[in-house]
């Protein structure tokens, strides 16, 4: 048959390729044992989270060139890191993802001797359950997910998630494009624990989500403030930092932390075990822990800054922003996400399916 020759060629190349697999692209461990790393750093971080000026200044100070790739959800980051062949020196997982990564042995233990600025971090952030004593990660920024309302357009009071997803708001809502988040709002709304992701609970929230999601106009984890700012939507469940930016520009954007289900997130810096430049990564982490640098991060992205030394440099206005720094007793009531294990897949599927039904 005429197709035999290409077939043989294919088989040959397959055989060759199989031989080649063990060859190149080997141990980054070889790289770490080398005394001098190349002056490069590969940063994989959230979009709209690390100001470019800070990165540029780091390069100016140390001569280390930083390449940046962005993601807009922990799941995306995990996907690229583990299943997607990406190699990075520094990642920025949230607390529950750190838990999963530590469990799977994916992170390099930090060399605390190199992190001289670690004392700037507030004590409560040094003893978080997902990484006691900051063995593998260092807090970058904390924050919340809450409701942002354009009070000029929506006059009725909004207190919790159920108030957002009402038929009168159809097509005027923006939410984060994050399955885990969405599920937690539904759980909180039914007074279930946000970490109580079980088959029964998921079945309980499914009809609620089926009611809620068709009302959503925009799914955006990158920059949800955009659609609120330009009026495409009037209400949204978004990151507190984004809401804080809106509030700082125009006080009509109110931020509400719902009683049921508001949670605290802590984004951390961590080094994957496959990193090629772990020393440079340590340098960058230490740089970000500096008070002046951390203050500049807060200026650009007004989340809840765990760096006490940096907080002292903030203006009273910034500290008074209810989206950045809510009352302490509200914060103390909040939970953080825990790793869901195998249920993270189920959560992914559930939301994808309901979302895909469109409107």
């Amino acid at each position, binding site marked *: 048959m005429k197709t035999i020759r*290409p077939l043989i*060629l*294919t088989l040959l*190349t*397959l055989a060759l*390729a199989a031989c080649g697999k063990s060859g190149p692209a080997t141990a980054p461990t070889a790289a770490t044992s080398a005394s001098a790393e190349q002056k490069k750093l590969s940063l994989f971080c959230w979009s709209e989270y690390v100001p470019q000026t800070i990165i540029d200044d780091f390069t100016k100070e140390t001569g280390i060139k930083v390449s940046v790739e962005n993601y807009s*959800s922990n*799941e*995306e980051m*995990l*996907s*690229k890191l*583990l*299943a*997607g062949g990406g190699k990075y020196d520094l990642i920025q997982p949230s607390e529950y993802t750190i838990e*999963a990564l530590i469990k*799977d042995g994916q992170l390099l233990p930090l060399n605390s001797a190199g992190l001289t600025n670690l004392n700037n971090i507030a004590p409560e952030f040094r003893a978080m359950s997902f990484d006691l004593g900051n063995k593998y990660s260092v807090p970058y920024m904390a924050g919340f997910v809450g409701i942002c309302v354009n009070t000029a357009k929506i006059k009725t009071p909004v207190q919790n998630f159920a108030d957002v997803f009402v038929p009168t708001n159809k*097509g005027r809502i923006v939410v984060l*494009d994050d*399955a885990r988040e969405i599920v937690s709002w539904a759980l909180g709304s039914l007074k279930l624990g946000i970490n109580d992701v079980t088959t029964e609970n998921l079945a309980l929230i499914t009809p609620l989500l089926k009611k809620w999601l068709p009302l*959503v*106009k*925009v*799914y*955006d984890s990158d920059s949800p403030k955009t*659609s609120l700012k*330009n*009026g*495409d939507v009037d209400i949204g469940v978004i990151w507190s930092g984004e809401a804080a930016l809106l509030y700082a520009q125009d006080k009509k954007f109110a931020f509400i932390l719902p009683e049921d289900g508001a949670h605290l997130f802590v984004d951390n810096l961590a080094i994957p075990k496959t990193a090629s430049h772990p020393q440079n990564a340590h340098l960058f982490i230490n740089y970000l822990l500096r008070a002046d640098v951390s203050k500049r991060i807060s200026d650009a992205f007004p989340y809840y800054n765990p760096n006490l030394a940096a907080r002292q440099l903030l203006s009273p206005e910034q500290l008074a922003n209810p989206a950045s720094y809510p009352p302490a007793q509200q914060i103390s009531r909040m939970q953080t996400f825990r790793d869901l*294990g*195998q249920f*993270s*897949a189920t959560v*992914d*599927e559930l939301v*994808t*399916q309901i*979302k*895909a*039904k*469109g*409107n």
Partner: protein
Amino acid sequence: MAETARQTPTVLGLDPRRASWKAWLLLGPLLVWLAIFVLLPTILLIVTSFSNRDELGRVVYSFNWDNYRRCFDPTWLSIFWDSILYALLATAICVLVGYPAAYTIGRASPANRRILLTLVMVPFWTSFLIRTYAWISVLSQEGLVNSLLLSSHILPTPLSMMYTPFAIVLGLVYNYLPFMILPIYTSVEKLDNSLVEAAYDLGAGPIRAFSRVIIPLTQPGITAGALLVFVPAIAMYAITTLMGGGSNPTIGEVIQNQFTRARNQPFGAALGVLLMLLFLVCFFVLGRKKNSAHHV
């Protein structure tokens, strides 16, 4: 590909030489490239579609039909259908809008034809991001249309045009219109003038001349254009995401989601394989139609 009176070496009595080992050696790199980077990835995709994933999203190679069974859930089928509808609508609009323009260019004098063609080529070659961004800046809340409407007090509040099916179709049409104009133009240019003349001579009005003579004669061009627009538009998710905002998902978006956020590569691969089949079917059906209607 259409074969006219091609002056192949055989026609002129020269024998296309039987491939010597040297020729095979030279062609080798190409074949190896095709095998490794075209054939192999496709095979791997099919293999992955039968596999599973672990907790953290890594692929666990196995063999089962679970992913395909999931594909036939109404949710996903309706997304396939939505994508086809968007593509169909965009293609139809492109034909309606593009045909008269292509006709005009094809019948223009050679000098004008040159200029007009170049004018079509510029959007054709322009980056799709620029072209899509152009419409985002026109349609968005703080964009041109709303600025005009508000400043001239025609409307009190801005129109919400972005993130709607309208925006998606518009984005697709704007991107693919040159792809429709060019093949139709090629067909029109090849029109035998005497046939058109004959139609008018025999007393046909413009409508009949067009519907009975001109359009059927240029049908290969229309089909080629439909091929170039419809088939890629089904899977073009970058444009639909930018214009549609995520609440109007297309199949490309869903597959992309499976490979990133949803961390379910096997399921994404299964959807991908189905998309590939859909693609092949459309391609062959349209391709047949184009080649079968090959007159003169």
